[in-house]
């Protein structure tokens, strides 16, 4: 199981209503279903993944987060999860707005383009960075809008989105992100995990 899944699950209150946007093969949903709340469902673009979710007994809708979130009423979920896919949307801002409309709270995780390995990769090699958390080449990456922890932090700030919890994950540990340590976290963390609300 991906290391951030447990951290995400810990941000979710028991027996709450959860939507996992881009739920993949349902690994996180399955974990949440078994440990946190039975009221969890997903939306996933890949037919194969939807079929995998169904075989695990999970409720999933085949659909595109970019165009299909409109069908959910305002605040119809306690939590909406978006795991490492914000950067893959054509219009991440619109998707984020939709997440915060549909969910009372959103959990958004991002692969950090500001991590020192990524920076070094480009600086020294002069090629687009390929790392553990960003394994694709420039020509086949699904990531259209890469951002750093700092970018996302500032972006939410500008949009007057409230941070309930901001966490930075690197191989060793999980740390809090704040305005004062932002530059440091942005340099040393591979993944940013944010619990936000409007």
């Amino acid at each position, binding site marked *: 199981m991906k290391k951030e899944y447990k951290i995400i699950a810990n941000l979710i209150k028991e027996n709450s209503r959860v939507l996992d946007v881009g739920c993949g093969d349902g690994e996180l949903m399955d974990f949440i279903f078994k440990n946190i709340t039975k009221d969890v469902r997903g939306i996933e673009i890949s037919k194969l993944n939807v079929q995998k979710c169904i075989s695990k007994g999970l409720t999933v*809708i085949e659909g595109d987060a970019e165009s299909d979130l409109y069908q959910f009423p305002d605040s119809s979920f306690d939590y909406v999860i978006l795991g490492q896919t914000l950067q893959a949307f054509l219009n991440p801002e619109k998707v984020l707005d939709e997440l915060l409309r549909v969910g009372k709270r959103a959990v958004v995780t991002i692969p950090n383009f500001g991590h020192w390995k990524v920076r070094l990769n480009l600086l020294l090699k002069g090629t687009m960075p390929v790392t553990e958390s960003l394994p694709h080449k420039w020509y086949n990456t699904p990531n259209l809008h890469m951002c750093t922890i700092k970018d996302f932090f500032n972006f939410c700030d500008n949009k007057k989105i409230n941070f309930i919890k901001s966490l930075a994950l690197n191989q060793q540990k999980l740390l809090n992100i704040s305005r004062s340590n932002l530059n440091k976290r942005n340099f040393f963390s591979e993944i940013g995990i944010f619990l936000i609300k409007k």
Partner: protein
Amino acid sequence: MSKFENIKKLIVKDQLKLDCGQTISDFPIAYETYGKLNSKKDNAILVFHALTGDQFASDINPITKKDGWWKYALGNNKAIDTSKYFVICANVLGGCMGSFGPSSVNPKTGKSYGNDFPVITINDMVNAQYFLLKYFEIEKLFCVTGGSMGGMQVLQFVANYPNVAQTAVPIACTSNHSAQNIGLNELGRQAIMADANWQNGKYAETNLSPDKGLSVARMAAHITYLSKDALQEKFGRKLQERDDLKFSFDADFQIESYLRHQGSVFVDRFDANSYLYITRAMDYFDLNKKYGGNLSKAFEKSKTKFFIISFTSDWLYPSSENREIVIALNSIGADVGYVEIDSDKGHDSFLLNIPNFLETLGNFLNTSYERLNEKRV
């Protein structure tokens, strides 16, 4: 002696008020069952058939001696596993496999009803089949499912009886018949009625029946059940047992011969008037309108867990129409899953051996059944 003498039938003594205003009672609903009802009576699945289907969903149909229409999906160890579940399937009201329909004999006249039979609706079909649950003393169904018109009945069933089915799997269907589909049905009906042997619906008393018309209706409909790619792949421009074109109107092409065959075998098992009545019921189906233009309202009172399935190449009941049902359910926070299965076989995909479809259907049923049992423990 009727050829339907030895099939299972429930004679419904109660009155059933039809949408057209007429009330019927003492009418037969022919049905078949597969598997065993367990002692808790929690493993029952009601399967609804499509336009030309019948109650014989699996095994060999004792009347036609052909395989059941859902042989790939339904049976021992299949997606709808009859070693686990008790499956009930009934011939719809208006049908011609033993249920009350236009070929039934009117006791008042001693003749077949023909087109004196009341116009029936999907709602009437569902309400008629509900009597079977009373007969089997089943309070909760584990699942209601069906494809095409069967899917429409699934939607209507949940709307009418919001807390009877634990799960509902409407497949390749719609919540309201489109203009295209009404048009295609009308084409079929006009083919039947244009046949002089139809005799204004009173052919049952004569030695003639509108076989030509019914066969043309079936040929036209059959094209709509397939996809362009499937037809092209199967037939292309291949010629039928000849080396060259004959410059005539014989069946030069294999596709012509195939359709003619489909038409001719269909008339042996199906009644032309039933075709008129059942296509009419499909055309009248508009669950949105019935709930004030808001489909969500049809399901508001229900806690049923939905799983909707469509097929990529189905242009008769396209994914967009299936998705409308998903959207209506999501907008009221209902428990709904949805998948569009990749298939180039068109609308008929739900009847065929499409492994992804069958696996997904089976997985949904089995995991849902397990989860329901976990809850009870």
